[in-house]
């Protein structure tokens, strides 16, 4: 698979004709090109929310630079009546606000696309097969924004008004969306911006003639749903998991997770009478310290966590081996970005699947959860904390920038059904009853041993935690039999865990010979691609969505039922497939094929479909 963008394929109804008779309703994508730091995020969110409030399923993808202000940024909104919320590769409706990229952006558009642009850019001179809508933004912004220094920010709201007119958006919903965006405290700013929306709408009404086929019409598919970023949902998952210690180091794209959590902890985890917190947060000096503190806190009995991205995970490697071998619970949320090295800090990748699962030297392996949606970020964050304490081991939640930092349409977050699981912790009363304990003795035969917390008031409570060789009683040992026995017990524990972690989800229909497998955000492209293969090529496929490592036995059974299985990876080296290879017998491995994308954009269905079509010779 090539990382470079290919020429977008053109939907039949658009090609060749600038006056398409067939309308395209609630099934297209809008992209807005701006400069970062220009306040365009607000205008984009208002646009997306308006469509959402009209009952049409949407998704929003922000393609932003690793920079604070002045570089190009693109925001893509997809409206999909079918409810597909993955990225759509083709751009149908384009708003060019950035002079620097306008020419290249225009040349990339498929024939028949619509183009709203800043009039002085004269983009209509570049080609003739688009629907052109020139708008004199600078002339329009003056009258609605007397204060010159605010004009740069307010200008962007004008395109919301223009687009609203051209797509037939409900202005009342747009007004609601705008005021929600500004919040109750910034009414004056909201009114100023609303003036800009109205000016754009009025200009478009009087001066532009609609020629493109794209329309938004009200539906009823978003009732009760949320628009939320994965990082926010994950932070809420941690909040409701009962996190007590967060130690972290800032890194894109995970910082907003920590910041959201800190804000929620401040709102909801200070006790009414004393005003004191039921949590502690420390911004550490680096990722080593961040995970070291989380491990120390987990050892002391806290529900502890850190969040980071690939470079941080690399730094945490030694500590994670300690936590694995000394059997200390903690949660690491990895919001992946493009690597190796500093890579593309603001682009998305499933680059750390292998490193999460196998981090650290020697024999070490870790449970990894793969959320694909905000709901799963929320529920799986809770699962991570419970697994960490039940199995006394570091647990990874493997997210990515697309999931963490983009806007997703989501079901309402469900209140946890189960009580918090604290695992096998012996209290002083337990020790009185038992007369003592051996820290690493497999009493129950499941590989999971009992621990005590420091501060337990009992003569037999103490034990010595170490990353060096130890026997059942946690005493230093270099004996071969002690070492092997302990490593085998850790394997037994991992096998117990295999049957306690989120199982995969599948869609199967009889007769389909081809299987698709993915994890995390690849889900959206995979599910849509499966539909594309059926609709466009008459090829039926079944899919299985892995939600955790270690893999459930259902994966092997799924492969068994199919002739060929395509494993979808958002990385060059087929990391998910590689991990499966380690777990599966050779006969099953032989059935696996690889679909890979690693260009840093959220994976889209067309890319997956094209690759499978090529490999299948369809």
């Amino acid at each position, binding site marked *: 698979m090539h990382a470079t963008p290919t020429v977008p394929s053109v939907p039949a109804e658009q090609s060749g004709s600038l006056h398409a008779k067939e309308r395209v309703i609630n099934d297209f994508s809008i992209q807005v090109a701006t400069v970062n730091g220009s306040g365009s995020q607000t205008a984009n969110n208002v646009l997306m929310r308006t469509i959402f409030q009209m009952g049409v399923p949407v998704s929003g993808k922000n393609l932003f630079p690793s920079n604070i202000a002045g570089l190009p940024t693109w925001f893509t909104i997809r409206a999909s009546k079918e409810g597909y919320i993955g990225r759509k590769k083709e751009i149908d409706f384009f708003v060019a606000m950035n002079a620097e990229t306008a020419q290249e952006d225009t040349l990339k558009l498929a024939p028949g696309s619509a183009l709203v642009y800043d009039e002085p850019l004269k983009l209509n001179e570049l080609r003739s097969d688009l629907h052109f809508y020139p708008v004199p933004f600078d002339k329009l912004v003056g009258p609605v924004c007397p204060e010159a220094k605010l004009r740069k920010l307010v200008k962007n709201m004008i395109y919301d008004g223009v687009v609203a007119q051209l797509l037939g958006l409900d202005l009342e919903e747009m007004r609601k969306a705008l005021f929600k965006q500004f919040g109750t405290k910034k009414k004056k700013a909201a009114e100023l911006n609303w003036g800009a929306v109205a000016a754009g709408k009025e200009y478009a009404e009087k001066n532009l003639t609609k020629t493109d086929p794209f329309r938004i019409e009200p539906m009823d598919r978003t009732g009760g749903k949320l628009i939320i970023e994965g990082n926010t949902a994950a932070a809420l998952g941690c909040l409701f998991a009962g996190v007590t210690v967060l130690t972290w180091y800032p890194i894109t794209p995970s910082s907003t997770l920590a910041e959201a959590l800190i804000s929620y902890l401040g709102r909801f985890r200070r006790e009414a009478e004393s005003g004191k917190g039921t949590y502690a947060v420390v911004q550490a000096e680096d990722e*080593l310290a961040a995970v070291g503190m989380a491990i120390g806190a987990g050892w002391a009995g*806290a529900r502890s966590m850190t969040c980071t991205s690939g470079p941080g995970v690399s730094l945490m490697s030694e500590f994670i081996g300690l936590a694995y071998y000394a059997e200390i619970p903690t949660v690491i949320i990895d919001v992946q970005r493009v690597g190796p090295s500093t890579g593309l800090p603001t682009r998305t990748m499933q680059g750390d699947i292998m490193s999460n699962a196998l981090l650290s030297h020697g024999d070490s392996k870790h449970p990894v959860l793969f959320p694909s949606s905000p709901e799963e970020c929320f529920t799986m964050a809770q699962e991570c904390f419970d697994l960490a304490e039940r199995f006394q081991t570091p647990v990874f939640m493997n997210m990515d920038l697309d999931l963490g930092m983009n806007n997703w349409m989501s079901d309402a977050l469900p209140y946890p059904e189960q009580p918090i699981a604290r695992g096998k912790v012996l209290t002083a009363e337990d020790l009185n009853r038992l007369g003592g304990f051996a820290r690493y003795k497999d009493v129950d035969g499941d590989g999971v041993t009992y621990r005590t917390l420091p501060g337990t008031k009992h003569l037999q409570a*103490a034990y010595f935690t170490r990353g060096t060789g130890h026997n059942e009683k946690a005493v230093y040992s270099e004996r071969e039999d002690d070492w092997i026995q302990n490593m085998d017990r850790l394997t037994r524990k991992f096998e117990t865990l295999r049957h306690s972690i989120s199982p995969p989800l599948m869609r199967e229909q009889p007769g389909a010979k081809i299987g698709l497998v993915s994890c995390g955000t690849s889900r959206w492209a995979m599910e849509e691609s499966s539909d594309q293969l059926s609709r466009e090529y008459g090829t039926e496929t079944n899919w299985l969505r892995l939600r955790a490592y270690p893999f459930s036995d259902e994966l092997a059974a799924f492969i068994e039922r199919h002739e060929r299985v395509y494993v979808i990876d958002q990385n060059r080296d087929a990391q998910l497939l590689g991990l499966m290879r380690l777990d599966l017998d050779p006969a099953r491995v032989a059935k696996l094929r690889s679909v890979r994308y690693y260009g840093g954009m959220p994976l889209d269905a067309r890319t997956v479909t094209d690759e499978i079509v090529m490999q299948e010779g369809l």
Partner: protein
Amino acid sequence: MSAAPAPPKKTNRIGLEVLNYRGGKTTLCAGCGHNSITERLIEAFWEMGVEPQQVAKMSGIGCSSKTPAYFLSQSHGFNAVHGRAPAVATGALLGNHQLRCVVVSGDGDTASIGLGQFMHMLRRNVPLIYIIENNGVYGLTKGQFSATADVGAKLKTGTVNELPPIDCCLAGIELGATLVARSFSGDKRQLSAILKASIAHNGLSVIDIVSPCVTFNDHEGSTKSYAYMKDHEEPLHDLDFVPGFSDIEVEIEEGESRVVELHDGSKLVLHKLEHDYDPTSKIHALEVLHESTRRNEVLTGIIYVDRGKPTLTEMLDVVDEPLATLAERRVRPSREVLEQINEEFR
């Protein structure tokens, strides 16, 4: 020991014998300074009547880091990774701020691989006792120089150190430790008083203890040897420690002694030697340290005390109980809270 009948067993203020504060048998070399420090720790915790179950013993990697296994066997211990004990100890205290935490580290741990963590622990004034068993060499890897080795110090192989040492006491004073002391593993009386003072202190105590490595750094040309310390130790004062729980009245001779009262009411009595030294002045502390280095002396004693600074756990303003064991109803917000949050995203 004579064959006389056993004297009645001595117990401390919580009724425990010193035996309750002992640990496993040391595996370090006979004569290692670290073993003396272990003995002083056992005595200090016993004499102060600290409940062993309330103590967490933390360490990194190295000879020094093995020692928490040799004292307080009724306390939880954690031998973590090289140089990273500060983070693990900080985390443990976040999880349970009622723990009494003692970290034992070495000069490799603290001044090289873990220097960053050491510095940030200082900044945070993490309430724990941080001991540096400083012998100027890496013992477990057979005698390479560490970052506290003095200029001109010579290895057994003849290699001479040319880089300036990192002074952990200077760093401690400059960056926020609230009790800073230097001592010598062979100075039983002084070390004992300093350790007890650090147990009484509320805040971060940094104790840099010159602790000769008898195998790799106790020869002619070494600046961390028993012989070198005998010639170069320069005590700031004679120290007496009077615990807050004792009935002993402290009487001082005007102009001859100073009293520094600690958090729990204990008193440190500093008997004047050559000069009257006030350990509460930061500038003065830095000055005497620099001055002693210039004179090739090893200044020992309580160098700096700051009793007013809030600790990390105080600044975090957490509930009184350990976070580790809070009940579910205190850490999981209600159904109504989640509904309110959902509504904010609709």
